[in-house]
């Protein structure tokens, strides 16, 4: 029997698991996907929002700013790269100015440093900003990291500290001991409050933390009558190649505003990524299927059109006068778990003691995740009166990234491991040493996408055209697979269909 079962291995679940791993608890994480970080945490800009904009008094406001501070600490402990490059929200008209003042008021209430700087004083912070910008809200605590790296590192560190993980393990039902008749309850192990069902197993535990993101409503509604509903909100991002990336020194966002066709947007943003590319986006469209990755031309065109228009006032225009449409190397999209409560759903419902929600985790949940994880883990830790471990290891060492090494470091790395000189992904300069490490690590990659998210192999301008055949080979070598078994991202996503000549033979026979 487990003390705690965490449902979901995204950023919130992994952060919860890592916090639990500091204590003497038997913890299991159940993940529906083929890999850690396979839901909303994967389709995410990686912005470490400072917490200036959530409506004061909400859970979003409560967890965002503390999460932001903890995120930098976590990144240091877990050797995950980040840039604390600030967030710059720019206003170009009176209604934008009004929004800046509102955001500034929220920031003060949320205890987040933020400063309105009018033109031309703002040029000290953003020397190349266009004169059409009336003022900026400068938020120094904002930053960017890689949401996959953070999530993998948290899960890996939790695992190393004793948390168990089961992948491909969708929760299909939850039994509550207190809702069983005495006969049924006798089947529960002593002290068990829940039995969690997956397609293969029935697993007993004392407490549950629901970190199921886009399915957090489904999980909650299995246990509690205090129901809520997730409305998946799809957003697309456009990625630009790394050519201009050194010129983007901060995340730039337009002011929030109403949309002409109805609805409201936090504003378009252009964010540097720690990998060196740039992310543009994003829009929000309510959809039915939480798992969809389908992006449509109107939503992407909206992003492109916005940046075509806004480009001249952005600092990047100095280097490149027009929006570089030919630098678009990828478009991706995914859903954010917006709850119909319009806020994160955090804590135990009144009618379900022992069941702790960390749901409705739409933006800024990634930035908030370290604080949410800490909070919900401590509900369990306190309830179970768990003791701290003496041997918890808060540190994790990442594999050194070849692309960002100095010449001397490159020379040294190659002399220690010649695989560092074998460049597999040419666009992102990812070496065989990094790819093998990503597979060999605890909770390592098992698919082409798993390698991609851990190493950036395939994230560059050719989008895996050159490297994926080699990545397939390396996966086969490391995991003892046949190439036909290698998948894009688990399930029925095999990369290859059949050996050469076999289909013809099949048809003739």
């Amino acid at each position, binding site marked *: 029997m487990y003390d705690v079962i965490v449902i979901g291995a995204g950023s919130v679940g992994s952060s919860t698991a890592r916090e639990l791993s500091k204590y003497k608890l038997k913890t299991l994480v159940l993940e529906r996907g083929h890999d850690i970080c396979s839901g909303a945490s994967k389709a995410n800009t990686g912005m470490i929002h400072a917490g200036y904009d959530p409506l004061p008094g909400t859970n979003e406001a409560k967890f965002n700013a503390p999460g932001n501070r903890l995120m930098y600490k976590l990144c240091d402990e877990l050797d995950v790269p980040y840039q604390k490059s600030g967030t710059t929200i720019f206003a170009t008209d009176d209604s934008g100015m009004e929004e800046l003042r509102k955001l500034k008021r929220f920031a003060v209430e949320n205890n987040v440093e933020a400063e309105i700087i009018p033109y031309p004083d703002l040029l000290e912070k953003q020397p190349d900003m266009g004169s059409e910008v009336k003022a900026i809200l400068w938020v120094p605590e904002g930053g960017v990291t890689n949401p996959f790296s953070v999530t993998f590192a948290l899960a890996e560190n939790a695992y190393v500290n004793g948390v168990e993980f089961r992948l491909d393990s969708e929760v299909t039902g939850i039994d509550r001991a207190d809702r069983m008749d005495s006969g049924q309850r006798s089947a529960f192990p002593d002290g068990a409050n829940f039995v969690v069902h997956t397609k293969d197993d029935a697993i007993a535990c004392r407490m549950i933390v629901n970190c199921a993101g886009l399915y957090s409503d489904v999980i909650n509604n299995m246990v509690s009558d205090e129901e809520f509903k997730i409305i998946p909100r799809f957003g697309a991002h456009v990625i630009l190649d790394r050519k201009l990336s050194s010129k983007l020194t901060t995340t730039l966002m337009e002011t929030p505003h109403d949309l002409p066709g109805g609805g409201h947007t936090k504003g378009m943003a252009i964010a540097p990524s720690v990998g060196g590319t740039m992310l543009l986006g994003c829009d929000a469209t309510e959809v039915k299927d939480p798992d969809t990755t389908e992006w449509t031309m109107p939503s992407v065109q909206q992003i492109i059109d916005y940046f075509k228009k806004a480009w001249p006032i952005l600092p990047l225009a100095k280097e490149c006068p027009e929006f570089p449409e030919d630098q678009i190397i990828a478009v991706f999209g995914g859903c954010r778990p917006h709850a119909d409560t319009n806020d994160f759903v955090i804590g135990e419902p009144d009618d379900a003691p022992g069941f702790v929600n960390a749901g409705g985790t739409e933006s800024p949940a990634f930035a908030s995740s370290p604080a949410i994880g800490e909070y919900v883990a401590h509900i369990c830790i306190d309830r179970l009166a768990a003791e701290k471990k003496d041997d918890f290891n808060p540190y994790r060492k990442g594999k050194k990234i070849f692309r960002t090494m100095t010449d001397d470091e490159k020379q040294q790395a190659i002399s220690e491991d010649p695989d560092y*000189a074998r460049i597999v992904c040419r666009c992102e300069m990812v070496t065989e040493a990094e790819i093998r490490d990503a597979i060999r690590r605890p909770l390592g990659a098992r698919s082409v996408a798993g390698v991609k998210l851990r190493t950036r192999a395939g994230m560059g301008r050719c989008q895996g055209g050159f490297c994926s055949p080699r990545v397939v080979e390396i996966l086969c070598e490391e995991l003892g697979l046949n*190439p036909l078994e290698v998948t894009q991202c688990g399930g029925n996503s095999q990369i290859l269909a059949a050996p050469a000549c076999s289909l013809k033979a099949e048809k003739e026979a």
Partner: protein
Amino acid sequence: MNITKETDLLIIGGGAAGMSTAVSAYENGIRDILILERNNSLGGVLRQCIHNGFGLHRFKEDLTGVEFAQRYIDKIKEYKIPYMLECFVIDLSDDKVVTCVNPSEGLMKIKAKAIILAMGCRERTRNNILIPGVRGAGILTAGTAQRYLNLEGYIPGRSVVIVGSGDIGLIMARQFVLEGVEVKAVVEIMPYSGGLPRNMKQCIEDFGIPVYYNSSVTKISGRERVNSVEVCRLDENRRPIPETAMKIDCDTVMISAGLIPENELTEQAGIEMSSSTKGAAVDECNMTSVPGIFSCGNVLHVHDLVDFVAEEAEETAEYAASYILGNMDVSYSGTIEVLNGEGAGPVVPCRINRNIRAESANLMFRPRNKYRDAVITVKLGSRILAEQKSIALTPGEMCRISVAGDKLSGAAGPLVVSVTGTINN
């Protein structure tokens, strides 16, 4: 870090262009040559081209890509021209120093008297051409499909829709049919094929594969793997007409929508780029804005036939050799700009030195349309310097026209290349 090695001629890339420059440079008297190749064998993309049609111009023989490459590999071995495999170039600087890595040599900085850029090109992806829809397995470029099939020995899907009608896609369509893969359709955004007419005939028409011109894939559907695409006809502004949407079931979408020269190193070195060709801005010797750095093959501009890549590379190597041997007049007296006029795509070279170093300037470009009874003209002001008639032209095939050097000497320019004729799209 200090320079670890010096050489007369450094060639970046060991594909068709790189190998032919090496052989030609050797034959022009250069002995201190080094080819850097990132793969574990020479040959570049030719290694996976097991179809024929190579060498008809260059060798007057019908060879496979593999055989074509082998001709050059044999010469390189015969001449004992050094090459380094698994060598990845990290940086190129305008003082002609290349930083590269190799598993046995580690990090190297190699200084050269002359450098030839022969990095080739990459394929446009689904994202470059913004095809909406899902992610998921089963979306790949034609070159990657070709590599899986011909080098790894695996078929990537059972039923495929091909986006674009570039040559690799057409070749793969035929190979897929022969492998028992169902080729559902070729969807081409333009009113004509982007590939060679012979490939359209031999790979598509002969196998009865449907081709949808003026159409595009407007949605890729599926979950873990692709299960269908939506195809729409386009209006005169190339926008999809929703009423024409048609669903085609398939498990694979193969993109064959053109190639992009791989000029990241060129740009890192601060070499001037041509805004029209997207390759380096070169003169009639294929020399870039940095004296002693040359560019040729598909990294300079995307060719139709490897025979012409080899030919261009061989000429480039002659100039590089003469630069290294000090026989090239490098004094600068201005350039004549070369522009593409009506009916002509971007032209290589984009400038010609006023004191032209060649007997003639060879101009290469693609026509903008399919033409019947076409005339290609090269004009300097109102003066026609060269004229060439052709029964038919197509964007899938390059046009080449040369202008005698003596006609250009001292001219101010610009030189304008244009195509007239009956448009036959």
